[in-house]
């Protein structure tokens, strides 16, 4: 469904991605793990076209989207729940969801809202509350819900567990599995919480300073001693 071929991304002089190739197949959950500054968020933002890749190709269902404008990419069916959630603080929960439905033209608004509410009942209780006053976990739910409102075919999630209590993390990960299984939605998940992420991932990539250093099935990487040492058990050792 999505292919990245030798993608380079730079911020001025800094090259944040140094030739990354990643593939996401229809119906999969693919996880990308890596330490801080590895370039995970950059990877997701590059897929969305902001910043654009300096070299390499990004293909969506065979179509080259490397030079497509960010807002057009969303209309092609890629939707992102960005890092740090970026909820519209002064808008109500419902308005935030409404903003998410812009790409789908708002035709199925009520229906999609109900779907989000079944997934995250907490949001329904807070429907008219302002986004900025939600708790971190609720904001994350709203962020994912907002991304779902666009009716994407590929959902990009950037660290949905960031700063969230373990019990809520489990809820959110359950929701991710649920949308993948029941709606058949393809998901590309970036995570620091490697254990949880690898557990639900069909396949996974390890990113380190802008390069893919390892890839394989989720369970496989979970059992890999190097990955365990670097990302699961204290994470002291660097992966080569």
């Amino acid at each position, binding site marked *: 469904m999505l292919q990245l071929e030798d993608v380079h991304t730079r911020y001025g002089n800094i090259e944040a991605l140094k030739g990354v190739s990643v593939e996401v197949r229809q119906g999969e959950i693919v996880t990308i793990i890596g330490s801080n500054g590895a370039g995970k968020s950059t990877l997701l933002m590059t897929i*969305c076209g902001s910043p654009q890749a300096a070299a390499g190709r990004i293909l969506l269902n065979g179509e080259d989207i490397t030079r497509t404008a960010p807002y057009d990419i969303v209309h092609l069916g890629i939707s*992102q729940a960005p890092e740090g959630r970026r909820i519209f*603080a002064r808008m109500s929960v419902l308005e935030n969801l409404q903003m998410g439905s812009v790409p789908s033209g708002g035709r199925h608004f009520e229906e999609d809202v109900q779907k989000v509410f079944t997934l995250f009942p907490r949001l329904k209780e807070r429907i008219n509350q302002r986004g*900025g006053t939600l708790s971190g976990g609720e904001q994350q739910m709203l962020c994912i819900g907002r991304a779902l409102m666009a009716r994407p075919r590929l959902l990009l999630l950037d660290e949905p567990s960031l700063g969230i209590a373990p019990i809520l993390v489990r809820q959110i990960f359950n929701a991710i599995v649920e949308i993948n299984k029941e709606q058949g939605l393809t998901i590309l998940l970036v995570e620091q919480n490697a254990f949880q992420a690898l557990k639900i991932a069909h396949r996974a990539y390890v990113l380190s300073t802008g390069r893919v250093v390892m890839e394989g099935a989720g369970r496989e990487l979970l059992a890999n001693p190097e990955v365990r040492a670097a990302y699961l058990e204290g994470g002291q050792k660097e992966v080569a």
Partner: protein
Amino acid sequence: MPSAVSKQALPAALKDAAIAAIVAFILFLPIIGMQLQPGSGGLDVNFRLPLVLIGAAIVFVGRLLLGLLGSRRRAPRAGPSIMERVAAGVAANGRWLGLVGILFALTMPFMPFSNRYVVDVGTTVLIYVMLGWGLNIVVGLAGLLDLGYVAFYAVGAYSFALLGTTAGMGFWYCLPLAGLLAAMFGLLLGFPVLRLRGDYLAIVTLGFGEIIRIVLLNWTNVTNGPNGISGIPRPSFFGLDFARSPEPGTTAFHQYFGIPYSGEQRVIYLYFLILLLALITNFFVIRIRRLPIGRAWEALREDEIACKALGINPTNTKLTAFALGAMFGGFAGAFFATRQGFVSPESFTFIESAIILAIVVLGGMGSQIGVVLAAIIIVLLPELGRDFAQYRMLIFGAAMVGIMIWRPRGLLAHRSPTVLLHPKGGPRPADVPPSVKEAGA
């Protein structure tokens, strides 16, 4: 335990007062301390140090008292303040208040207290209300700080002035053209500033406003420079002029209706004209807030990156905000030109931009009724102060400072959601208290 608090607060308040006094001393030194007097060899400077010291002492005592009283009051109060509740109430009952306001505006010229002067002031208030509503699109909704809004007002005014005097076109034909031209200038300004935000944007828009004014001032062939353009056609009422003796072959308003001529007729007509234009603006803004483009403006103000991730085109969104805001400025400008019958660059200085922006900010960004309230205050305050003209600006400044202390986010800053799923059930938006987190926003 107010006594314990004030004991601790005394040294802090003293220090604070001392700093304020020093600042005041430095400021007063040139403002009060030196007086120019015609002397033997031209101008003499007369130093008045005692006056400066007295002024600084007053500031010291005042600041000390404020500090001591303020520390006692600073204890967190339970629940929202009175003004917050008023703001929420206004937001919840906006429709009724709006209707009452419109009814009042419609009947105002026929009230017993009304006279030519009152209607004239009312017209001025309405011009600023309309400008405030127009600028509200750019500043209040899209969050783009525009310090050069007066440029579009000027473009509208001069468009009509030029078309009316040279091509002999009437007000009603020129009005859409003036709006269109202003909108084009809005786009012209919008393109180069797309990437700018906040203070940088403010500086560029300020420059833009000045450029327009200076061009009007110096392009003498077309704009007649500082002398301005006079003899601008007055608006007609469905082809009926407001003149004592109409041109041969035409009928005047008073003749058609068989009533005696009075100069007030045109004043009242102008009043209703601007009322109509302002109401159209208001209706348009309220409507567009609920459309995708209106929401996109608000979303863009909050988080541009999130907007990109949601498939909103920031370029188009910003440009429409500039263009539409400018368009209403242009309409108001055309009205201004026809009302005055004369335009000159002097009417479009930076202070006008500042006043319009002040109306939007004072009213509470994005609040339509807030703009009305602020426009009334800003136009009426100097008018009321006419009797003690010397102190007009002082009162004006003090009022602005006061409002910014007690209502830093504007008089009626309260935003109610534009989407409701089940209007009957669930908590009403007004019940949700404004958050502490947002107070600094």
